[in-house]
């Protein structure tokens, strides 16, 4: 498809949708996924997910929730230097989106997206140790909190300048395209990042070269304390059309809706059709950091979103529609809880880094390639057999 045709196709998508809702979910909060064929689709059509896939989605969301709860406890105990940042309420976004990734795909994961690190193979002890500045953390104490990416798992870690990683992701996708490799790059960012010029530079370039990249926009309603209405006049997902690729809006608290949008976007990217911007409507249920009392959030708004907790929603769906019983889900929860406890103990056992290493490693002695990440989706096991 020529570039000009892409614009027409997008216009058609928009026509099919009518005017998009400003924040990615319908007015009554019903989950909506739109995936490029012009037809709104009920969330979680899910024919691509096996029963075990669904258990995995639930498990990784739980792992994120319980690990962050554990990290918050460590913070309150004074074991975490600096502050603490979590993605409570946003678990469905990082887990659902990263679940589509194949081993050789690459990621730049942001600070509300712990689930994506777990899906790709980072164990919670390395996350917790990173928060505590321990040598067993992913960065060995060089960087803190969520500022990490495990090189060996194909992840390049974020910096505090949040839109920056979109550019790096675009560069990785450029490499895949230049080498004619069927690989994709995925990154995450909040709606706050969309106000920054770097975000535009990344989108524009990805559109020009139809790069194999999936942009996951988490609209969690606030950039620190700044609400959507002071961040943009027009929902940023609509900008995708002007960059020459589709923008789709999904319920970011519905893990299968996120998965489905990411699946379509990843297939599109892998087959050479270019990028997709997926806006996931969600809510940051905690403050920007643990130091933030989020007094700027209207209580009614928090209350409304708390009725739509992504883990609770998915638990209900698994029971109501997919034949899970509550005992089984409780068992999964217990297993994950025990695993996180073990990981926390391991992290607490990890020593602080030796001061001597502070001045080491500024320069590379040789090029070390990124390794491959884990892929949890059953489709990849099938492909490996094939």
């Amino acid at each position, binding site marked *: 498809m020529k570039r000009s045709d892409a614009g027409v196709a997008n216009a058609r998508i928009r026509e099919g949708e009518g005017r998009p809702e400003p924040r990615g979910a319908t007015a009554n909060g019903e989950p909506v996924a739109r995936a490029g064929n012009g037809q709104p689709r009920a969330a979680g059509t899910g024919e691509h997910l096996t029963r075990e896939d669904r258990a995995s989605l639930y498990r990784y969301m739980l792992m994120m929730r319980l690990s962050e709860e554990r990290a918050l406890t460590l913070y309150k105990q004074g074991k975490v230097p600096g502050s603490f940042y979590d993605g409570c309420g946003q678990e469905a976004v990082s887990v659902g989106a990263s679940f589509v990734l194949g081993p050789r795909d690459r990621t730049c994961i942001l600070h509300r997206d712990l689930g994506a690190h777990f899906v790709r193979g980072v164990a919670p002890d390395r996350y917790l140790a990173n928060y505590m500045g321990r040598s067993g953390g*992913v960065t060995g104490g060089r960087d803190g909190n969520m500022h990490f990416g495990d090189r060996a798992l194909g992840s390049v870690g974020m910096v505090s300048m949040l839109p920056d990683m979109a550019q*790096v992701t675009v560069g990785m996708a*450029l490499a895949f395209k230049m080498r004619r490799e069927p690989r994709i790059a995925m990154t995450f960012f909040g709606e706050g990042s969309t106000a920054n010029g770097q975000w535009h530079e990344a989108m524009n*370039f990805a559109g020009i070269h139809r790069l194999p990249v999936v942009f996951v926009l988490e609209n969690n309603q606030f950039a620190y304390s700044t609400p959507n209405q002071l961040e943009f006049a027009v929902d940023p997902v609509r900008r995708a059309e002007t960059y020459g690729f589709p923008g789709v809006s999904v319920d970011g608290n519905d893990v299968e809706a996120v998965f489905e949008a990411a699946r379509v976007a990843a297939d599109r990217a892998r087959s050479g059709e270019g990028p997709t911007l997926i806006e996931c409507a969600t809510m940051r249920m905690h403050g920007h950091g643990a130091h933030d009392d989020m007094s700027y959030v209207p209580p009614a708004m928090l209350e409304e979103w708390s009725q739509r907790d992504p883990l609770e929603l998915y638990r209900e769906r698994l029971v109501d529609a997919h034949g899970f019983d509550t005992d089984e889900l409780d068992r999964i929860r217990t297993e994950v809880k025990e695993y996180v406890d073990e990981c926390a103990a391991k992290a607490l056992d990890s020593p602080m880094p030796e001061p001597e290493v502070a001045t080491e490693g500024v320069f590379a002695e040789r090029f070390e390639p990124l390794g491959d990440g884990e892929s949890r989706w059953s489709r990849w096991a099938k492909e490996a057999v094939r």
Partner: protein
Amino acid sequence: MSEMTYLGAISDGLREEMRRDESVFCLGEDIGEFGGAFKVTDGFAEEFGSERVLDTPLAENLIIGASVGAAVEGLKPVAEMQFADFISCGFDQLVNVAAKLHYRQGVSVPMVVRLPSGGGFSGGPFHSQNPEAWFIQSPGLKVVAPATAADAKGLLVSAIRDPNPVCYLEHKGLYRHVKGEVPEGEHITPLGEATVAKEGDEMTVIAYGSAVHLAVRAAEELNEDIEVLDLRTLCPLDSEAILASARRTGKVLVAHEATQSCGVGAEVAALISERAFEDLDAPIKRLTAPDVPIPFSPTLEQAVLPQLDDMKEACRELLAY
């Protein structure tokens, strides 16, 4: 050996590396069919195709950021800033992402940023700067500044093969005015090694880039026994070569076109004071631009940028001390 301009040697080094290694590619504004604002990549698009000689939109953060992404995936991007001054628009990606990735997470970023720098042609405050000190203040970046045609090629080749981000400052005033013998085929100038541009015993001028030529000319016109040490790499500095020359001659003038405060000259002077103080026969002297933006009008620009007469005067004063 063949005689080339400094600019021709940059092209030659880049072309040879692109022929040798297909993971090397260049990207920047107007570098494709147009051949770049200074024609360094003239004819490259024809030889290597538009994908490896990638015209980008006017977006310096994108140029640097996409280079980082491509580099971590094993390509070797050579990014061109149309003028070194424009790195300010790509600074975030350079100092926060590229420079720190290896320290933070062991991710190597083999990329080169070509930075046409320097004044002397009424480019004004935004087309004349020598921003090398900005990069040295950002640990994780290597910084080179060739003075000769041979080193323009040799340092570029080394920069491309290095597994770290390297800022390659190419002085625009040398592009077509400096010519020299350049080895054909593979030619490497190792990073981190200074060279003696002119031998002498009475004093040392420690310089890089355009100031090397001023120093050599001054020494010749004064007909004095002056050593000129060409730093070539500014980060990491060749401390041993600096100290050895300072100890031997006992008098040091540090010279560069960049502004003075916290510049390379300040670092070199501090190094010598700390480690070779007792061998000095005179206070270390600096010849640099004063701490002002580079002005446009020729009379103002000449008043700011170090001139040959300034170099001669500084040498005379130091010799007479």
